[in-house]
């Protein structure tokens, strides 16, 4: 199968994403009235989501980024580590973590432990996509854009081998 033929039906159109982001922004604006936020984008997939969402937030906020990497040691044990750390101190601050997709919750669980160790005043999670079926660890997610099924999807920041991130919509991708 040619690579582009692997793209399937559009799951979330540009318009649908845009509208839902406006709704999420309204919720966040209401919840964080008169509060200062540090919005943390988990690179790279949440880049577009963060850009679109934060432009609709009517709050004093700072933007920061965090990137995790998975790798394998010689003895085939896995290691997860922060390869791009936050610029700002989050101690005593309200944090809104922006994810593009949460599937099993494993990486997310590591991320939360890492951030909580820095003693923020509060951490909220906002994810554009949430896959409840695949969840292995249940973590509190405060803002969910869409619940999605088990299809592999790309676009709007999500990739397959680093491709398709720049598609303006979210589309199924056949990895078989």
């Amino acid at each position: 199968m040619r690579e582009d033929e692997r793209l399937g039906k559009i799951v979330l159109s540009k318009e649908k994403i845009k509208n839902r982001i406006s709704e999420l922004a309204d919720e966040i604006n209401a919840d964080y009235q008169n509060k200062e936020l540090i919005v943390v984008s988990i690179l790279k997939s949440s880049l577009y989501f963060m850009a679109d969402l934060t432009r609709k937030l009517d709050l004093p906020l700072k933007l920061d980024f965090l990137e995790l990497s998975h790798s394998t040691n010689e003895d085939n044990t896995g290691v997860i580590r922060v390869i791009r750390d936050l610029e700002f101190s989050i101690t005593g601050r309200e944090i809104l973590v922006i994810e593009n997709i949460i599937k099993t919750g494993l990486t997310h669980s590591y991320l939360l432990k890492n951030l909580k160790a820095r003693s923020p005043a509060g951490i909220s999670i906002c994810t554009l996509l949430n896959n409840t079926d695949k969840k292995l660890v249940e973590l509190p997610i405060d803002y969910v854009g869409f619940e999605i099924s088990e299809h592999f999807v790309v676009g709007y920041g999500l990739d397959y081998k680093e491709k398709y991130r720049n598609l303006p919509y979210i589309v199924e991708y056949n990895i078989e």
Partner: protein
Amino acid sequence: MQIITISRQTASGGDEIAEELANRLGLKLINRDFILKNWLPQVADEHQLHMLQQSSKFYTKAIDNKSDNNQTFADYIEKKLIELAETQNLLIVGLGSHVIFRHHPGGIHIKIAASQEQRIKKLNKKYGLPREQAERSIELSDRKRRRYVWRVFNEDWSDLTLYHISLNSDGLSTEQALTILMSLIDCKKENPEPLADPEKKEKPEKEKTEYNFAHPSEKEFAKILDMHHIKWKYEPTEFPLEWDAEGNIRMGFRPDFYLTEYDTYIELTTMNRKYVTEKNKKVRLLQEIYPHINIKIVYKKDFNSLIDKFELNGNSEEENK
């Protein structure tokens, strides 16, 4: 507890790096100023405090000459640091803390240095010190630090084996130095080992609990959990599912993993469809009899995508469970 110590040459940028690192990690920062302001006034009078500010030698003097207790100011500081490290994560600047916590399992010891030229420039820029005065100030301050570590701990301050890492801040911005240090701290989370103690007899390496996994996929899954610092137990509980007329257990089910922090059981089904159906039935039954139990099933496809994602060499195809 996590204990990060930073030893630094005068005007090497070590204080700025320490402050920023403590901020980012949310650690309590302890340095000589903190000790002089908060701890030493409890045991030192005005004259003693003045001397402690001026002389490193004074730290080796007994706090109370009249009593039989020969505790020195340095002993007092060490005791307070050790006590605090039992309950709090700390970032300690100087004070010989890299020696005090040399064998602490959660200790990371950092040295920050810089070239003489850079340090002179820094003092000139920060305090307007002319070159000669800056040189003198660096010499005196470094000597004070070196002597303190030697007098109190009988260790050579410049011995690089006392540190996990030594950074030359020449040509490194604070941000770059922080990136390197955060990466080290993150790595050490995976493998928190203290620096070697040459005087200590080699203990036989503590063996990691070896589980007798029934299937290679379980071993791989355990690695994925370890990778994410998720605490687990292997097959800790068997749930009775069917009983005979006399109340004897006829069928039970033992899920593969229990995630203790999430109160969740995980069952892997990386085998043939025939067995999957049987296992699904057991899981359904378990959920009916024990509705309060959280159980998740990881199917073969999901397991394989986890293995792919985390770049582990899974063995899911090897054999049926």
